[in-house]
């Protein structure tokens, strides 16, 4: 067992190097960004990472940070791998981060129990654990602006109107193609309930994370079953592959509706045939906003962005910007509530809880009309905002419906049950002791 000597030496080396890293300055706010520009999910991960980073960099360049305090941004590459995500978390934990944005359901699940202990809020924007919408059970976790269950209820409403009324779906077949992980499986209970209540047949087509790029078997089944509608919950390489396969078997694209994750690149790669493909969305695409122009001016044109200029403002990039807006709003609300300039994770938790992204505020930050207002509260960490359906025209996304409200009647009992179940199964899950701030 002499080996341990070399092991300890290596460890000592690593530890020494870790300790040698420069200490953070006290007048900065540390915002770690968990991103992935490598691995099978990089196709979705790169625009998100750049959107988040560029917007926050713009705040640094234009305003000198938030409330006069510079943001210290640090990217940590997770590769969508839970192990690396935990490694990233441990490496940033000691640097006084104000929040984490895991960008992976797997990593989010790891961080949820740790958030309250380490006093670092988790902002998992429209992913992660849906039950975390219940702020009374999960005071440290935020998942605005809607959950995957909200998303499914919106898709069902849309499909219902397409079919000419919910009752017309009776006897029809709806196919569900999804990433065979926590993320894709989460909506299934709700889907099954819908199938029972409305009377349609639900066909499941799971795609394993390792087989994302080879879905011919699933689509062969789709061709055989001929579902009247297809619903997709995918991420990374799953999305472009599914769209390509759908085009290949000649599935009618206007009957193919996805949750909010496919971007332009995913649809574009399938060629002309992808026209008519639909996804949910809750924010605008494009660069026609003062704040986006500032991002372009201060970051992209200044050569500080890694993102290709010609794709500036595309869907997933804008999604990253939306995430960055929530980060910035959380921090500025925290500054407002506490009166401090340099806020901590605990302050930002309160800030996120008091998030009030009103029309006026959106206009103030130069994003009027970019997205619908969002207001969170101590009990509701999600907002359950409406989402609209957009259609791929072959070159861009086109909004084709008004915002559709989620069906809270079916979602709320599920959320309550799930939150209760989570707290019960995790023995020792703490009761909320965090005081709720009065709306400021």
């Amino acid at each position: 067992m002499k080996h341990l000597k070399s092991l300890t030496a290596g460890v000592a080396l690593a530890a020494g190097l870790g300790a040698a890293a420069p200490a953070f300055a006290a007048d900065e706010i540390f915002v770690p960004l968990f991103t992935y520009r490598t691995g099978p999910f990089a196709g979705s991960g790169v625009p998100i990472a750049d959107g988040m980073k560029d917007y926050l960099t713009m705040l640094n360049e234009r305003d000198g940070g938030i409330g006069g305090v510079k943001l210290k941004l640090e990217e940590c590459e997770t590769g969508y791998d839970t192990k690396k995500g935990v490694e990233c978390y441990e490496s940033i934990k000691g640097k006084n981060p104000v929040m984490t944005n895991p960008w992976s359901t797997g990593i989010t699940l790891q961080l949820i129990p740790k958030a309250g202990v380490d006093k670092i809020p988790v902002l998992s924007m429209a992913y992660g654990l849906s039950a975390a919408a219940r702020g009374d059970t999960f005071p440290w976790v935020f998942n605005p602006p809607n959950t995957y269950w909200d998303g499914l209820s919106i898709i069902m409403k849309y499909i219902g109107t397409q079919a000419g009324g919910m009752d017309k779906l009776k006897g029809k077949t709806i196919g569900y193609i999804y990433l065979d992980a926590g993320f894709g499986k989460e909506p299934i209970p709700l889907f099954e309930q819908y199938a029972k209540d409305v009377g349609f047949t639900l066909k499941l087509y799971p795609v394993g994370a390792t087989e994302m790029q080879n879905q011919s078997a699933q689509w062969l089944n789709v061709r055989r079953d001929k579902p009247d509608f297809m619903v997709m919950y995918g991420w990374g390489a799953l999305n472009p592959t599914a769209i390509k396969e759908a085009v290949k078997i000649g599935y009618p694209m206007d009957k193919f509706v996805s949750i909010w994750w496919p971007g332009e690149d995913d649809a574009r790669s399938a060629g002309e045939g992808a026209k008519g493909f639909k996804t949910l969305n809750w924010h605008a695409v494009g660069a026609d906003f003062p704040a986006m122009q500032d991002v372009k001016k201060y970051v992209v044109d200044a050569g500080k962005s890694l993102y290709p200029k010609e794709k500036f403002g595309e869907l997933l990039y804008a999604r990253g910007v939306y995430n960055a807006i929530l980060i910035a709003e959380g921090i500025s609300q925290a500054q407002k509530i506490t009166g401090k300039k340099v806020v901590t994770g605990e302050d930002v938790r309160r800030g996120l809880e008091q998030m009030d992204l009103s029309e006026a505020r959106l206009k103030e930050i130069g994003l009027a009309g970019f997205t619908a207002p969002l207001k969170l509260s101590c009990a509701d960490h999600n907002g359950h905002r409406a989402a609209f359906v957009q259609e791929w025209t072959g070159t861009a996304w086109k909004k084709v419906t008004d915002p559709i409200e989620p069906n809270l009647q079916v979602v709320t009992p599920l959320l309550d049950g799930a939150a209760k179940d989570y707290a019960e199964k995790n023995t020792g899950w703490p009761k909320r002791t965090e005081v709720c701030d009065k709306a400021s």
Partner: protein
Amino acid sequence: MFYREAGQFKTDYAADMAVFPIRQDRIGLALILFVAFVIVPAFGSDFLLQVVMIPTLVFALATIGLNLLTGYTGLLSLGTAGFMGVGAFACYKLTTLFPGVSIVIWVLASGFFSAAIGAAFGLPSLRIKGFYLAVATLAAQFFLQWCFVRIPWLINYNVSNAIEVPERTLLGLIVTGPKASPEVRYLITLAIVVALAWVASNIVHGRIGRSWMAVRDMDIAAELMGIRLLPTKLLAFAVSSFYCGVAGALMVFFWFGGAEPDVFSISQSFLILFMVIIGGLGSIVGSFMGAAFIYILPIALGSLAAAFNAPIPPATLEHLRYMIVGAMIIVFLIVEPHGLAALWRTTKQKLRTWPFPY
């Protein structure tokens, strides 16, 4: 000069056959254990314990498990991650069904579930060998992973579709869950790994280990000498899976604190196989070295870049890590095809005669 056994006389057979016949080795081992049990938890940072030490120990245990099978018995397996998963899920089911029993007992007990599954999938090993057996174990990997994803009973129908590690205490200390301190989790992992490594060392130096090695070197000859192949090979599968199962349970309960079934994917099986090959087939010491090398090297490279404040974007750094680690693996295998353990043996031999090699 300092490392030599001159003057250390052995007066009986037991002393001659000891695992550590040289006094310096024993002192070194005691020192390492002292550092591991006292110095590291006392002075190590959370990052060191949580990101470096606990994972390395977990992987070392899994590597020992695979080494018993591949290195000592000569049976190639690609189902390691699957067997680790069996241990993890068994431990989760056991501790949620019987929360009153100590978690350490359940971690060890979950190894037996893994052993049973491993022995079942080891049955084809009597008829097929080499690459063909690797394919059979690959089937085990896919089948087990399919079970982890498809059987919600295994995760108690959790809405998160993942193992959620509940809080457990041992002697009044919180040992699992988010509130458990890294020191406590590290010490428990270390104690289990050291104990099991000691057991493994004794197994391979005894009758069972010798029969395994006889089967590895030539199974027909071993059979002619009176070694019954089926029980021997199945025992190797069972013991190997036991180690992997315990490693899997440790991984989820003392390192991750929760796990999606994806964790136990084929890439993890390959990772552990690489650790065995880099460390050295048929060596317990090598298992620790291999695990440390493969797991710590990328982290060390990362902190190296951070220490020098290198302006490398994280994605490039990630690519660099892959390239450097890959290149180093190739270099190591060219310099020493028998792994780090053989390198260590050569170094020791050189040290014994240093500074007068002739």
